[in-house]
């Protein structure tokens, strides 16, 4: 494809890497949180729920700034990570992935939670009488039956990660090949008058990627759910 420049390919590859890693790493965390909020009642549950929604209500730049305060080299956790393990996120693609994951988290949790709440508990009971421990009943009943939410959450999270801008530029900065994802490249392009064509090319790539993710998630859901849907519905 001579249509995109090598630099643009780099941007796309980086965006994919950052988004895929962000979604894969965030997914189990999001599912665990969704499960806890859907199925457990404990003091502080609403607070946890609110905390998860924070990256959604706060302007992304603020989230990026909070990440900087927390995970930057001089940050509370960041300083420790650096001194102890030499780990640093600023200027690194891992930082971009963290920013994307944090921004995607509330969307993923909500979708997953909806599906977990829709799982019929009588089926979990049935599994238990058939000898399944709570953990196995979860793994063999609740988890597979909530696949639609997992797929929707992964899709939303991936799309959000692909589009994440404010938190990334604030926390991980805007370095070509390291943290300049598609949105940052588009922003960078917008700073230069007359680069509308380049911006449009990148925007189209963002659209193509998200379309791919959409197809993948539809396929995942169809494969695992549609054939087994609740009942025989015929004409209607």
């Amino acid at each position, binding site marked *: 494809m001579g249509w995109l420049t090598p630099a643009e390919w780099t941007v796309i590859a980086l965006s994919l890497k950052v988004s895929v890693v962000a979604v894969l790493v965030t997914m189990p965390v999001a599912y665990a949180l969704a499960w806890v909020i859907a199925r457990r009642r404990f003091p502080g549950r609403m607070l946890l729920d609110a905390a998860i929604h924070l990256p959604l209500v706060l302007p992304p730049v603020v989230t990026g700034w909070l990440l900087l305060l927390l995970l930057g080299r001089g940050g509370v956790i960041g300083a420790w990570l650096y001194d102890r393990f030499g780990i640093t996120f600023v200027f690194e693609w891992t930082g971009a992935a963290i920013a994307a994951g944090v921004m995607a988290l509330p969307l993923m949790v909500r979708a997953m939670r909806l599906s977990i709440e829709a799982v019929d508990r*009588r*089926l979990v*009971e*049935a*599994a*238990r*009488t*058939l*000898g*399944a*421990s*709570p953990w*196995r009943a979860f793994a*063999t*009943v609740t988890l*597979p*039956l909530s696949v639609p939410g997992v797929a929707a959450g992964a899709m939303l999270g991936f799309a959000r990660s692909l589009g994440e801008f404010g938190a990334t530029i604030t926390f991980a900065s805007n370095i070509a090949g390291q943290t300049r994802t598609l949105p940052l490249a588009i922003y960078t392009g917008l700073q230069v008058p007359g680069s509308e064509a380049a911006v449009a090319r990148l925007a189209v790539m963002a659209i193509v990627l998200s379309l791919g993710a959409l197809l993948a998630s539809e396929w995942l859901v169809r494969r*695992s*759910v549609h*054939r*087994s*849907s*609740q*009942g*025989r519905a015929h004409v209607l």
Partner: protein
Amino acid sequence: MSFDVDIALDVGERRIVLRFRSDARLTALVGPSGVGKTSVLDAIAGLRRPATGHITVAHETLFDAPRGVDLPPERRRSGYVFQDTRLFPHRRVAANLAYGERHAHGERRIISYEDVARLLDIGHLLDRWPATLSGGETRRVAIGRALLSAPRFLLLDEPLASLDPARAERLLRLIERLRDELDLPILLVSHSANEVDRLAGHVVTLA
């Protein structure tokens, strides 16, 4: 002693009090609709906690409020055929049947997979999704699933509902065989006097 049940059970606003001991191999639990039969089976299976009392089945204490015993459902090993069947919608019939089997390593099997498929006439359904089964087919699969989970006792909640006479007869014979050949206490809920007369050594009436 097959069943030694002495419980008080709160469902909704009501309290169901039931006390019975039975040495019969098959005990029938009868009573009008809504009296609490299903709730009692749930309590024995460990799905509903009685307010007080104890439950002993085949000399094993499953629940004992004063002594603080309350085995989780998976350790009670009931073969529970639910009134509302509860097949797993995301698993084909074969995988539904295998579900309990997989959790029953080292437990005593009471029936082979082949016998289940043949006696319940579900061999041709193994590849199907539960959503495509007819009412009677669904119930037969639910019965097979419970039998294959190597249960130590059976809880059957109207197992013959929506079965045609020929298949009902075949299932009755299977229950008789299980009753006579195995040391497997069975608690049967049924509205059919005919069924109860034929099968039960002891009848408990809930009212």
